[in-house]
C-alpha cells in the first residue's frame, strides 16, 4: 500500500544531559531499542571524559529511570569503546555493535553478558567498524560493516550467513554505511551515509530501490544515519547532515519532515525547580532565534535552537507506533506518535 500522507504528532521529550557516571540522564546517546516489556533502552556512547561510565540506561515512556548496566571502557567482556547501535532479537536479548572493538556483544535485558562475536578483518564474519544492526522475527541479524562498505547477515548467535556490497556509488555499493532497518517483509534498508541515500534490498541482498538521492532539496538526504519503517511501509530517515527526520512513502516520495520541537522533559523540569535563576532568564529568552547568515546552515542553526534536532543519530518505531528520535548532541529523545 502506498500512502501519500502520514500524521505525526509530537508527544514529549525524554532526557537530560548526564555529566556524571551514572543515574538519570543521558551522555551522548547513540541509539534506543525497545525491550520486550516496552522499556526504552538507551545506548550512551559517552564522550572521552565520561567514557569509563559507558553504559545502557533503561527508562520508560513515563520518564521513570529504571536501571542501567555497563562494564566500563575497554575490550573486555561486556565492555564497550565506541558503541554505535543496538537491537533486541527474537529471544529478547540485546545486541550491541562496537565500531572500535569490531565486536557484537549479546546482553540479557538485565545486562548480563551472554555472548559475543567478531574481530577486525575483511573476510566473512569479520568487521571493520560494525554500525547499524537489526534482527528479524526468525532471529537473523543484519549488520552494516561500515569500513568494509558492506552488509553482513548472521544467525542469532553470530554464525555467518551472507554478505553483500562493496565500496562505490553504484547500486548495491556503499560508502561508510551507518544505520539499518527492516520492514515487515524483511526488506533491508541501509543508510548509505557517505553516498547521501538510503538503499533498499530484499533479505537476500538483491537491490530494489534508492531513496533520497533526488535533486529536489526536500527529498535530498545529507549523510543519513538511521532508517526505520512503520507498519504502512513509510520510511523514516534520520537525515543527520540536515539535522532533520525525513519521512518517505514506499515510492520514495517525501510525505513529512520533522525538524524537532523539544520541550522540557520531567527531568529538565526538576532541574529548573532547583535552579530558578536559570529559569527566570530562560523565560525572557527566545530559544528559536533568527540565526545570522554566516551561521545559516543546519548544524549551526541546531546548535543555537534548543528545540531543534541536533545530531539526530537514530530513529526507531515501537509496537505502539511511537517514533523515537535520538539526539546525540542534545542528550535526549524526542518522541512522536504516528497516527
Amino acid at each position: 500500500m502506498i500512502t501519500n500522507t502520514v500524521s505525526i504528532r509530537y508527544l514529549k521529550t525524554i532526557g537530560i544531559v548526564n555529566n556524571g557516571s551514572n543515574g538519570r540522564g543521558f551522555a551522548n546517546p547513540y541509539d534506543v531499542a525497545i525491550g520486550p516489556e516496552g522499556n526504552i533502552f538507551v545506548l550512551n556512547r559517552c564522550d572521552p571524559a565520561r567514557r569509563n561510565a559507558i553504559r545502557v540506561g533503561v527508562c520508560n515512556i513515563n520518564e521513570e529511570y529504571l536501571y542501567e548496566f555497563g562494564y566500563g571502557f575497554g575490550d573486555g567482556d561486556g565492555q564497550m569503546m565506541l558503541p554505535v547501535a543496538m537491537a533486541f532479537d527474537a529471544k529478547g536479548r540485546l545486541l550491541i555493535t562496537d565500531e572500535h572493538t569490531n565486536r557484537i556483544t549479546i546482553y540479557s535485558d538485565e545486562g548480563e553478558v551472554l555472548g559475543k562475536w567478531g574481530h577486525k578483518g575483511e573476510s566473512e564474519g569479520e568487521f571493520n567498524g560494525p554500525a547499524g544492526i537489526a534482527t528479524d522475527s526468525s532471529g537473523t541479524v543484519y549488520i552494516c560493516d561500515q569500513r568494509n562498505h558492506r552488509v553482513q547477515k548472521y544467525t542469532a548467535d553470530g554464525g555467518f550467513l551472507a554478505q553483500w556490497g562493496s565500496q562505490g556509488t553504484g547500486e548495491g555499493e556503499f560508502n561508510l554505511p551507518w544505520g539499518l532497518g527492516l520492514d515487515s517483509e524483511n526488506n533491508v534498508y541501509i543508510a548509505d551515509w557517505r553516498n547521501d541515500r538510503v538503499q533498499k534490498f530484499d533479505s537476500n541482498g538483491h537491490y530494489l530501490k534508492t531513496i533520497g538521492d533526488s535533486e529536489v532539496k526536500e527529498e535530498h538526504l545529507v549523510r543519513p544515519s538511521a532508517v526505520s519503517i512503520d507498519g504502512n511501509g513509510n520510511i523514516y530517515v534520520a537525515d543527520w547532515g540536515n539535522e532533520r527526520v525525513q519521512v518517505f512513502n514506499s515510492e520514495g516520495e517525501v510525505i513529512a519532515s520533522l525538524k524537532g520541537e523539544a520541550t522540557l522533559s520531567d527531568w529538565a523540569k526538576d532541574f529548573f525547580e532547583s535552579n530558578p535563576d536559570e529559569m527566570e532568564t530562560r523565560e525572557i529568552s527566545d530559544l528559536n532565534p533568527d540565526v545570522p547568515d554566516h551561521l545559516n546552515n543546519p548544524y549551526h542553526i541546531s546548535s543555537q535552537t534548543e528545540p531543534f534536532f541536533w545530531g539526530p543519530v537514530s530513529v526507531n518505531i515501537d509496537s505502539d507506533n511511537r517514533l523515537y528520535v535520538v539526539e546525540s548532541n542534545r542528550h535526549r529523545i524526542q518522541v512522536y506518535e504516528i497516527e
Partner: protein
Amino acid sequence: MSQDASLMAHLMRRAGFGATRNELEECLSDGYKTTVDKLLNPGESNHMPDDLIRRYHVDQSELRQLDGAGAYWLYRMVTTSNPLEEKLALFWHGLFATGYAKLNQARALLNQIDMFRQYGFGSFRDLLVELSKDPAMILWLDNNENHKEAINENFGRELLELFSMGIGNYSEDDIKECAKAFTGWTLKNAEYMSVRASKDSIWPYGRIAWHYEYRANDHDSGEKKFLGEVGNFNGEDIVDIIATQEPTARFLSTRLFQYFASDEVGDDGNQVIKAMMDSYFESGFKVSAVLRTLFNSDYFKSEKCRYSRVKGPVESVVGTARLAGSYQEPTLDVHFLWAQTMFMGQGLLAPPTVEGWHEGVEWIDSGSLVERINFAAKELSDPTKYGVQDIIRRVTSGYRDFIQPENLVDSCLDFMGPIQVGADTREGLIEFAESQGDLQLKNGKTDAGGSAQVARLIGMIASTREYQLA
C-alpha cells in the same frame, strides 16, 4: 642541502608548521614568490572532513568541552592544505586571547576561530569590527554588561591597549568614549547565556551556541570625542578611527614580525617593520599585504632570521604530527593531542589571560621541555607512521648494501627539513648513530630492524635543541 630548499623550509616553518618533503618539493617547483602568494591566497582548504570527525567523535560533534574543541582545531591544523590560514588564526587567537575558563562555551570559541579564518588575511579594520561583534569576545570582556546607563570599560580598554594601538597612545577619556560607542553590542539571550556561563551550566540539553545581537535601545547614541575626533560614534566608527592610527600600524606590524620572523626586534628588524607599516596604509589596512612585505624582505630570508624563534607548543605538536603523518584520520585518543599542548604551556582555546601567552624563550622551562622532547621523539621514532616511513624510504634511496652513520645523520637531517644543526649537535647525532652501527640494507631496503634503527635516529634528531627552533 640546497640554499633554495633551506630557504623554502624556513618559509614553511614560519608561514606554516614545517613541510614534509613532498610539500617542500611542490613549493620548490613553484618558487619562493609564488609560494608566498599561494600561502597568502589560500582558497578552499583541504582538511579532514567535518562529517567524518563528527561521526566518530561525539565530543567533537557537540563541542561542549575544551579538550574536544581543542582536538577538533588540531585535526584541522594537522591536515589542512592551507597552513598559513591556520598559523594566522593561531596568531589571532594569541593576540585576541579568548579563553574557555570564563565562557564555558567551546563552540563559541571555535566560531571565533572560523571568523579569524574568514577575516584574518583581509582588512585589519574589518577584523576588529568582527572581533567586536564576536559573542565569545563580548562575554569574555563583559561587553554584555556595557550598558547605555552604566558603561563597562573592559572591552573598550583592551581594544585599545591589547588589540590595536598599545598603551601610551590614548587617554583614559578615550577609553570611556570607546566603551560608550560599544554599548548595545551584545549577544542573543545575553541574560540567560550569561547565567549559564557563570554557572558552567550544561542543563538541560547541553550548550546553546551564541550569536551577536545589537540592542539599539541600549546604545548610547550621544556625541563622543575619541582620539581628537567628535561625532555620534557607534562601534564601527571607533574602529574606523583606530585603523587609521600610526600606532595601530606599528602595533600590528611589530606583533606579526615577532610571531613570524623573530622574537627579538633589532635595528634591521625595525626597518622591516617600517616597510610593513607602509604596506598597511598603502593596501587599506590589509594583513596579507603586511605579511607579503615581511616574507619577501631580505631580513626574513637571511640566515640571521632562521632558527631565531622558539616554536610555540602548538606549532611544535602540529609540525611533528604533520611530519610523522599522524592523525590523518579520526583517531580514538586525539584529545590527548590537545592535552600535550596544555602540558607544554599552550592549552589551545585556553590562554591564561586576555594578554595571551608569553612567547619566545618563555615557552621553555624544564617541565615543558621534557614534554616537548618526549612527544616529538615518540611520534617520530615510530616506524609504523606514514611520515616516518617516507623519510626512511628517501634516506635509503640510492644506497644498496649499507649506510654509514655520518651519511645517515646528514640524510635524516635533510629529509626531516632540511634542518640545520650546530657542529656539536651533529657530532652527538653521529656518535648516537655509530652506537647503532652501519644501517644494513637488502637490495636498498631496510628490514623491520633497520627501519627501527633509522626511526630511533629520527627521534633523536627531534630531541635536539635545533628541532625546538623555527
